């Protein structure tokens, strides 16, 4: 990894890819990808359709196993550990389109976020914290989550992810499918969660907005990392402006 990409130098990465390759059948998706997310960072992964963004997230979570290379969590290689191992160790995701359990109540959705935890008091405490963050959610606890509006579902999805007490929160297209007015609000929310010390790894189409709040970013193109730099440098990069920010 180049030394001027803005990443902290003297800390162990929380979650890391070392020369990761993945295949779906014969199709080569990720090609020699290197990534590192450090504690408390806000980083983003940019890329067009079919560039390998979703595969990156699935590989980080252990839903896809790399064909070569290493996925490293706190310095330990976790290639063959199940998703639950990563969740217990503080990695979780807010999936694309929220994917709530629509037939379950809002409360049950939140409780499932804490499925692997056994500390009753801690869970109750975190529930209160989430009600504080989203008072609207508290009013709808017994409602089936499928009946909520898009914005409310986003709150529940984030709340559900926070219930596992993550150290790093992966977010897959957090502004996808949200009304324009909510997009800004959503980014403020992400910053707020980040300011509580949770590292955030965001995959976004809305490159301008994402880079404006991120520390660093990567650009993925057909499975290869083509840019790896600080957010300011990426925002100023003429190539990136041309292809992702709709200029030129």
């Amino acid at each position, binding site marked *: 990894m180049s030394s001027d990409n803005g990443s902290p130098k003297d800390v162990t990465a929380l979650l890391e890819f070392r020369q990761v390759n993945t295949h779906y059948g014969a199709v080569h998706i990720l090609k020699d990808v290197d990534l590192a997310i450090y504690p408390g960072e806000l980083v983003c992964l940019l890329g067009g359709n079919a560039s390998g963004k979703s595969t990156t997230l699935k590989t980080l979570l252990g839903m896809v196993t790399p064909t070569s290379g290493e996925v490293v969590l706190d310095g330990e290689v976790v290639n063959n550990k199940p998703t639950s191992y990563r969740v217990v160790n503080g990695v*979780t995701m807010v999936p694309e389109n929220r994917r709530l359990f629509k037939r379950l109540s809002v409360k049950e959705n939140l409780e499932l976020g804490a*499925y*692997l935890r056994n500390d009753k008091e801690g869970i109750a405490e975190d529930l209160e914290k989430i009600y504080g963050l989203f008072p609207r959610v508290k009013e709808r606890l017994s409602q089936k989550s499928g009946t909520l509006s898009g914005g409310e579902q986003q709150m529940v999805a984030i709340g559900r992810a926070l219930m596992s007490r993550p150290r790093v929160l992966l977010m897959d297209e957090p502004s996808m499918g949200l009304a324009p007015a909510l997009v800004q609000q959503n980014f403020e929310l992400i910053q707020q969660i980040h300011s509580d010390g949770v590292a955030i790894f965001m995959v976004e189409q809305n490159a301008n907005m994402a880079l404006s709040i991120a520390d660093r970013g990567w650009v993925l193109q057909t499975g290869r990392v083509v840019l790896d730099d600080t957010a300011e440098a990426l925002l100023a990069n003429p190539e990136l402006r041309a292809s992702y920010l709709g200029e030129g």
Partner: protein
Amino acid sequence: MSAHTISTNPVKRLISVDRFLTFIRIFLVTMIVVGFLAFIWQQIDADNPFARWRNPGARGLTGDQFKGLIVSGLSQGSMYGLIALGYSMVYGVLGFINFAHGEVFMVGAMTGFIASDKFQANGMWESNFLLCLALIIVMAIFFSTFTAVVMERVAYRPLRSSPRLIPLITSIGVSFFIQNFVLGLFGPATKSYPRLPEWLSKQRSIFTFEIAGTRLLVLAVAAVSMTALWYFVERTKTGKAMRAVAEDKEIAALMGIDVNRTIVTTFAVGGAMAGVGGILWGLMFRSVTHMTGFLPGVKAFTAAVVGGIGNLGGAMAGGISLGSAESIAPLIILEPLGVPGVSQLKDAVAFTVLVLVLLFRPSGLFGERLSSEDRA
């Protein structure tokens, strides 16, 4: 691209199919309405012109007879409901119909026979019936659960990622296998359960209903089992995980739920319910063979569809509706229409109920509309 060229033809054909279905809808509804009106007229005046034409010698039903029909419908239906739960749960998590579930029920009934036969031989059946009952229920639950879990592990798990038609066809094969396995072990003779002790099976009068003790026992055990299941699914952490897996396996795994273990639990719980159903069936009808699972299995599957497959409350309600319809409809709809031999037409009634539900409410009485993306 080619969708445009194909599209005109099916639309045309669909119209003629629609006409046919509309005809069937009108025919069935007319029959039910006319039959029911004829029944009411017959109750008011047994010698009315319509009855003289269609059903001479009709005497109508007495109140006690009607109550009897309701009670037998309920007890029959609650057994269907217990079996239907297994169909519905497996469909909920895996999206296919496990046609071998009827055999899981049969294994429960068979286990009950073997155990109760031994208990009767040493006299314990008479002297300590309640203990025997508890023991045979536990044994039936054990063997049915075992059968269901092994079935999942051996036959269905390797097919998890194949199209849903494949496990469905496999389940028919599993069904034949279990039938013949039991045939090989215990032979083709009909086995008869020992008689229930007199103090339990005698008629009792409850709220003016004359109920045979056996039916009362069936209703009570079914109610307890269903309540336990409801509590398990709605109130426990495992139940919550089960509902989450039914809805979205990938996200359930993201929550840290062990999807495979949850699927095994689903089969186990469905198997346990079928085991209890098997015992009740044995106590009620007192005979069991290796083929016992077939018809109740198909009926319970019907009940699950009637109630809305994938929906547990629906499976119970579907079972009870189906049992009641089977018991009541022949006498209040078919008999007044002058259909001969109505008591033989139970099965025809059950499947007509299925046709009606599929015609008027394809998602079942309590079913939600399923989106095409998550159900086959």
